[in-house]
């Protein structure tokens, strides 16, 4: 749909990364390299630490050890990543379109227009609705639309397909394919299947 | 002991208050120290036996 555009070539590196919650160590000595155009699927049983790892990669949770770096990224350019967690940041009393426009404003209008993004995730027909009225899957779609309105090379997605219908699963796959094709990179924690050739899998073991 | 003059009760009250306050602070600090030390020892032995 969009022409092939190239993100600034950034790669994600983690060296000897240790992360966990509080002082509970969940993951230790992890080395990661994700190159432009590549995606990494995080898999593992409930409680293995997938969400924790994503938060640490996003810089929202200080790692307990080791380091994460975005190789090739100039901090002056602003944040290089989108994090999309369990919570959708959708607030009742704001319209769907307003919500997305707000995200676009705070993250920079570097991607699709608001309506184009809503169209892409299938929410354009209800763009005027109060966002608090959306069904679980629709809220998830709105959260995904956030990734489209501001272009950033690295996507960190925590269970992006949660609550989505089969069509939504395909949507996520196609969004990801397009993002990777444009030179973006992604780390995705999920329990569902996402069939894409460019995805490697990293299986996290249940903690001992 | 010397006489404390007409306001002896206030002087005594002030010193008694300080004594009580200090006793409380010291006692509380020591009690916390003792109970944590004991608990730590207990946990350490349990931890070691768990691993063994």
């Amino acid at each position, binding site marked *: 749909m969009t022409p092939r555009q190239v993100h600034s070539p950034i790669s994600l590196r983690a060296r000897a990364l240790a992360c966990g919650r509080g002082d509970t160590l969940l993951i230790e000595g992890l080395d990661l390299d994700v190159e432009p155009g590549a995606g990494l699927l995080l898999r593992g049983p409930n409680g293995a630490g997938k969400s924790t790892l994503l*938060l640490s990669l996003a810089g929202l949770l200080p790692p307990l050890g080791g380091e994460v770096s975005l190789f090739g990224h100039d901090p002056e350019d602003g944040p290089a990543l989108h994090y999309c967690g369990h919570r959708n*940041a959708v*607030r009742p*009393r704001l319209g769907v379109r307003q919500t997305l426009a*707000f995200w676009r404003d705070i*993250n920079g209008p570097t991607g699709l227009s608001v309506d184009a993004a809503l169209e892409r995730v299938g929410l354009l027909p209800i763009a005027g609705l109060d966002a608090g009225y959306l069904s679980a899957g629709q809220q998830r779609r709105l959260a995904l639309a956030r990734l489209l309105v501001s272009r950033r090379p690295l996507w960190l997605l925590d269970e992006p397909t949660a609550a989505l219908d089969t069509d939504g699963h395909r949507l996520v796959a196609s969004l990801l394919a397009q993002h990777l094709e444009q030179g973006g990179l992604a780390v995705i924690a999920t329990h569902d299947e996402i069939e894409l050739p460019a995805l490697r899998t990293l299986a996290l073991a249940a903690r001992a | 002991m010397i006489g404390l003059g007409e306001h002896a009760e206030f002087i005594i009250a002030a010193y008694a208050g300080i004594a009580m306050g200090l006793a409380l602070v010291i006692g509380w600090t020591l009690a916390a120290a003792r109970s944590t030390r004991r608990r730590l020892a207990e946990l350490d032995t349990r931890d070691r036996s768990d691993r063994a």
Partner: protein
Amino acid sequence: MRGFLAVLWRDLRLALGGSGDVLTIVLFFVITGAITPFAVGPDQALLSRIAPGIVWIAAFLAMLLGLDRLFRPDQEDGTLALYRLADVPLAAVVAAKVIVHWLTAALPLIVASPLLAVLLAMDFPTFARTVVSLLLGTPALAAFGAIGAAVTVTTRRGGLLAPILIAPLCVPVLIFGVGAIAMGGGPDQAGAALLFLAALSLTALALSPFAAALAIDWGEE
């Protein structure tokens, strides 16, 4: 700037959009003023003497009421995490929120203050001075409030903690706020108090976004 305005509009819309928060705050303010006569008895002279103090206390307490809504809902629905990764600096987000807090919790009080002036038998000059001192002083309360709210967002029982943290810090604002009204006699002293209030507000406004942003960045998640 775009992001700053976006936060400003969003929060204004949320605060005003039918949630009744503004009305609650104004009602609280008026109730506080209205029950004072019952406490001190119907002595007009006495009432008008303590009126500036009552107005300031009511304003201070009413602003504490809205504090929990500053960051808490955003923290709970995940918006705060987005702010931390947004293109706008977190300090700008906090600044926008401080402004909204002032607009929705302080400005309505100032607008409602004529009511209190009548209830408490203030004369007109005193009332005018009250409005000026509120206008100059409440920004500092909002700024301190933001720090208190930011420091307590991640604790799960913020509600009352933020007020007790910031109340001691707000003492100078109260003292000079009331001082500027009460010292009607010496205009230079009242002027000095007002100047001091303004200085306090400016400094607090300038510094609090950074302190609050740091607290959020290091405390959240």
